[in-house]
C-alpha cells in the first residue's frame, strides 16, 4: 500500500505541490495565530480561514460528483448541514450536561439520572416549548456514536436518495432539480419546531468544547483549523487517487457518455451511487468541522441556495480539476466575507453610492453568468493555460 502511494505521488507531482502548499499555509497560520505565534492573525480570522478550508473540502466533493461524474447535485449542502447537526447534537448535549451537573451538585439530595436528563432536556428544548428528548437524540450523549453518524447519516440519505434517483435513470437537469427538492424538503422539515432539532433556533454554542471550558478559543480555533487542514489534505489525496485511477476514467466516461459505459458492461448506477455517497460523506465531515468553528447551525444554512453557491464556487474555480474547486471555494467565499462584512470600500457615484453589502450578490450572480459563458473552465482553466504556456 505504501509503495502504491509513493508511486502515485511520483506519478502525480501536482498532489505533492498541493499538499506542500497546504502544509506551508497551515504552518504560516499557526505561526501567525494568537495562540501559538506572533498573533498577527486574529482568532476570528483563524476561524474564518478554518471555515474556508471546510468550504474547500466540500468543494472537492462537489467537483468529484459534478466535475468528474457529471451529476450537478444541488443537495450537497444538505449533507454538509446534516454532518454539522450530528456533531452539534453531541457538543450541545455534553456541554449542557456539564452545566446541569454543576448546577445540581449543590443540591442536598443528589439528583437521579432521570432528573439530570430532564434538566438537560428543559435547557435544550425549552426554546421550542418542550423538554423531552426526541428519539433522534438517543445517542447524543455518546461521542463516538455521533461521530459515526456524521458519516452515516449523510451517507445513508445519499444512498437511499441516489438509489431511487439513479435506478429510475433520472439524469441531467431533472436530477439537479430533484436534489434541490430533497434539500428543500430537508430544510423545511428542520424548520419545524417539532423536528427534534430545535426548529429555526438550530443548535448553538457549538464553539465550546465540553469539559474544556478553560481552554481559550484562541487555542480551540487552532485545533479546528488543523483538523480542517488535515481533512482537506487527506480528502484531496483520496479524491486524486480516485480520479487518477481506472475508476476515475470510468466516472469521467459516465459524465461524457453514460450509455457507452453501460454497454461496456459497467453498472453505471452503482458507480454513480458510489461517487454520490462518497461525496456526501466528505460533505458531512466538512460540515462537522465547519459548525464548531461557526458556533451555530440552523436550517437556513442548508436551504437550497447554499448548494447553489457551492456550484458557483466550483464553476468559478474550474470544474474537473480538483485544485480548481479548492481555489474557487477559497476565493469566492473569502471575497464574499470581505464584501458582505462591510470591509470593502463603498463606491460613490455622485447620485448613488454603491454599497458592497447590497451589491455584492449582484456582482457575484453576473460574474457567474460571465464565467459560464466565456470561461467555462473557470480560474483553474486560466491557470492551466498559463502553465501550458510556461511549458512551451
Amino acid at each position: 500500500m505504501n509503495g502504491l502511494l509513493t508511486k502515485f505521488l511520483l506519478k502525480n507531482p501536482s498532489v505533492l505541490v498541493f499538499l506542500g502548499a497546504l502544509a506551508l499555509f497551515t504552518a504560516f497560520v499557526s505561526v501567525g495565530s494568537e495562540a501559538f505565534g506572533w498573533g498577527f492573525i486574529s482568532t476570528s480570522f483563524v476561524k474564518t480561514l478554518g471555515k474556508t478550508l471546510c468550504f474547500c473540502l466540500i468543494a472537492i466533493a462537489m467537483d468529484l460528483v459534478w466535475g468528474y461524474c457529471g451529476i450537478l447535485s444541488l443537495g450537497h449542502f444538505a449533507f454538509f448541514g446534516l454532518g454539522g447537526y450530528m456533531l452539534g447534537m453531541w457538543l450541545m448535549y455534553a456541554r449542557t450536561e456539564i452545566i446541569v451537573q454543576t448546577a445540581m451538585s449543590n443540591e442536598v439530595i443528589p439528583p437521579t439520572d432521570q432528573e439530570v436528563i430532564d434538566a438537560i432536556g428543559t435547557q435544550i428544548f425549552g426554546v421550542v416549548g418542550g423538554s423531552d428528548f426526541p428519539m433522534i437524540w438517543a445517542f447524543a450523549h455518546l461521542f463516538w456514536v455521533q461521530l459515526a453518524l456524521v458519516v452515516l447519516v449523510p451517507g445513508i440519505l445519499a444512498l437511499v436518495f441516489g438509489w431511487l434517483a439513479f435506478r429510475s435513470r433520472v439524469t441531467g437537469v431533472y436530477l439537479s432539480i430533484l436534489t434541490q427538492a430533497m434539500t428543500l424538503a430537508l430544510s423545511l422539515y428542520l424548520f419545524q419546531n417539532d423536528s427534534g432539532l430545535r426548529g429555526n433556533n438550530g443548535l448553538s454554542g457549538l464553539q465550546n468544547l465540553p469539559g474544556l471550558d478553560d481552554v481559550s478559543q484562541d487555542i480551540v480555533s487552532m485545533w479546528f483549523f488543523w483538523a480542517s487542514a488535515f481533512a482537506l489534505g487527506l480528502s484531496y489525496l483520496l479524491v486524486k487517487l480516485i480520479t487518477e485511477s481506472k475508476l476515475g476514467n470510468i466516472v469521467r466516461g459516465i459524465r461524457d457518455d453514460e450509455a457507452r459505459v453501460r454497454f461496456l458492461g459497467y453498472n453505471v448506477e452503482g458507480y454513480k451511487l458510489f461517487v454520490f455517497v462518497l461525496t456526501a460523506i466528505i460533505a458531512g465531515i466538512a460540515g462537522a468541522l465547519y459548525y464548531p468553528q461557526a458556533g451555530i447551525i440552523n436550517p437556513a444554512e442548508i436551504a437550497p441556495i447554499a448548494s447553489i453557491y457551492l456550484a458557483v464556487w466550483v464553476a468559478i474555480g474550474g470544474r474537473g480539476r480538483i485544485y480548481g474547486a479548492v481555489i474557487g471555494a477559497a476565493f469566492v467565499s473569502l471575497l464574499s466575507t470581505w464584501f458582505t462584512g462591510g470591509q470593502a470600500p463603498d463606491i460613490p457615484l455622485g447620485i448613488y453610492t454603491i454599497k458592497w453589502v447590497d451589491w455584492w450578490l449582484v456582482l457575484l450572480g453576473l460574474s457567474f453568468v460571465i464565467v459560464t459563458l466565456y470561461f467555462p473552465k473557470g480560474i483553474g482553466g486560466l491557470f492551466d493555460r498559463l502553465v501550458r504556456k510556461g511549458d512551451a
Partner: protein
Amino acid sequence: MLRVLTLFLGLLLAVPAFAQSSLYDALAEQTAGLKKPSSKTIETVISSLQDSGAPGVADFLTKLQSKEVWYRKSDDKFFFVATDDKKTYRLIDIQSGEVVAEVAKKEIKQIKPNSGVRAKIDGALVAFRLTDADPAVRDAALVGISRDPKAKDLAPLSAALASETDPDLKARMERLSRVLTVSFGDTTEARVAAIASFDGDLGLDARAVLNPLVTTTLKAAPEVGAGENVAKTLRLGNDISEEDAFDLLVASGLAQAEPTKGDIKAALKANIIGDTVGGMNVANLGTDEARLAAHMALAASGAVPAILTSEDKAALLASAAYYEVYAEADPAVTAAAVEALSSISTAVGVSQFIDLVLDGISLASIYFLAAIGLAITFGVMRVINMAHGEFIMMGAYTGYVVQQIIPNYTVSLIVAIPAAFVITFAAGVAMERLVIRHLYHRPLETLLATFGISIALQQIAKNIFGTQARPLTSPGWLDGALVFNDVIAISWIRIAIFVLAVIFFLGLLFVLNRTRLGLETRAVTQNPRMAAAMGINPDRINMLTFGLGSGIAGIAGIAIGLFAKVTSELGSDYIVQSFMTVVVGGVGNIFGTLAGATMIGFLQKGIEWFNPSNTLAAQTYMIIFIIIFIQFRPRGIIALKGRAAGD
C-alpha cells in the same frame, strides 16, 4: 347620550300610531304598581302596558330597568331624569324627550326595581323588540338572542313568529326558535323534534347548540348515581388506564393524592437529620428506589404520610365505577342529539370535502400559472430557466409600482397585467439573446447561468424595494368570498385566479395548436434542422417562445402578488414547486402541466388536511412523495412515448 336618546324618542314618536292610547294614560292606570314594583305585581303592569299599544313603552321599560325612571312626588307623574351636579335635576318628558322642568332632589323619587323585577322587564323587552315595527330593531333583537340564548326568550320568540311578515326575518326567527327549543323546550318531545329538525344541517348555530348536549364528563363514584344520563361506563384497564382512574378518584375525593417524585424529594429534604434521612445517608439518595425506601422509613416512623401499597391501591381502584355522563340529563334528548350530530358530521364531511376540492383547484390554478411559462420554455427549448421565479417576482413588483402611480385599484390592475407581460417579455427576450442563446445543448450550464441571473435579479429587487413586503392590493370587487354555506367558501381572488388559469390554458392551447407561431414552435421543438430548412427561423421562434414563457410568468406574478405579499423572495418560494409541476406533469405539453399542477395542488391540500397544523411538514411530505412518484413515472404523468421522447 341624552341627545341620542332624545332623538331616538323623537323617532319613535314619528311612527304613526293607530288604535293606541297615549303612554301617559297607560302609565297612569298602573301608577301604583310602577311606583313600588315587585316581582309579583310587575307582570300585570307590563302586560297592561303592552296591551295599551302605546308608543314608547319599550323605551320606558328599558329606562325603568336601568333605574332611570323617577316620579314626581307632587303628582305621581313619571319622568326620565338627568343631572350634572346631583343638586338640581332636569325632568325629561317620557314621550317628547324634552326637558320640562328643573327640580331639587327632594321633589322626586327614583324607582328602584329589584333584580327579580328587572329580569321580568327584560323578558318583556325581548317581546317588544321582536314585534317592533322597525325591521332593523327586530333584526337586532334576533342577533342579540342568538348571541346569548336564554330560556325566557323562547316564549316571546314563538309569539313574534306568528306575526312576523318579513320572510327573511321570519325564517331566521323560526330557526332561532328551533335552536332555543333544543335547549329550553318544555317537553322532551318538543326538544327531540327540534333536534331532529337539524339533521344534516350545516349551520354553525345548530352545532353550537347540539354539541353541549352531548359533552360528557368523566366521573368516578362508588356507583352510578340515580338520574345520571350515562354515556358510557368505562372498564378499568381497558377503557381507562389505572393512572387516569386513580387521578379521577383523587379528583372525586375518593382517594388521597399520591406524592409525586418531587413531593417525595421535598419530604425527604424536610426530614434530613444530620446527613441522614429515614436512616439512609443523603449522599446515597441519587436513585428513585433509594428515595422511595427512605420515604417508607419516614412513613413508618410517622414523619410523613404513608404511600399506598399496590394491593391497597388496586382495592381502591376496584371499589369505584368509572363512567362518562352527559351534561344533559334527558336520555331521549341526548340520543336524538347524538343522532342529529352524526348526520350533521356526515353532511359537514361532504361539505368539507367539497371545500377541500375547491381549495385544491385554487392551489392547482396558482401552480399552473406559476409553472406554465416554465413548461413552455422547458418543453419547447429544453432550457431550464432558474430565473423564472424572478420573472414572477418582477411581474408582482410591476403591479406594485403601477399601483403607486394609479391609485384606482381596478384601473391599475387593468394596466398592470399588460405592463407586467411586456416587461417580463422584454426581460426574457434579453436573457435569451444575451445568455441562453450561447448555451444551447449545454443544459446544465444554462441552469447555472440562469441561477446567476436569478441571484442578481433577486438582490437588485432587494436593493430597490427593500426587504419589507410590499402590498399589491386587490380591487374592492375581489374582496370577500363566495359563501355557499358555513363550511364551503372560496375567496373571489382565488376564483379570479382560477379563471385566469383557465384563460391561459385555453389561450395557450389555441396559440400552440391553431396559429402559425404554434405550428412553427412545434416544428422547431420536433426537428430544429428540418424546420430551419423549411424557412422557419429557429432563432426567432426560440426568442419568441422564451419571451412568451417569461411574459406569462409576469402575469402569474400579479396573480400571486394579489394574495401573497410581494417580496424579493416571492419567486424562489414558487420555483421548486413550479419545476416539480413541470416534471411531474411531463415535459413538453400543456396538458402535462395541467395534470402536474392538479396533482401537486390536490396533494398538498390533502396532506394539509391530514395534518392541518403544519404546512411546513405538508411541503416536506409532498416533495418526498414527488421524489417517489418520479420513480414510477420518470417522464411524468403525461409522457411522450417512444422515440420522440428519446434522448
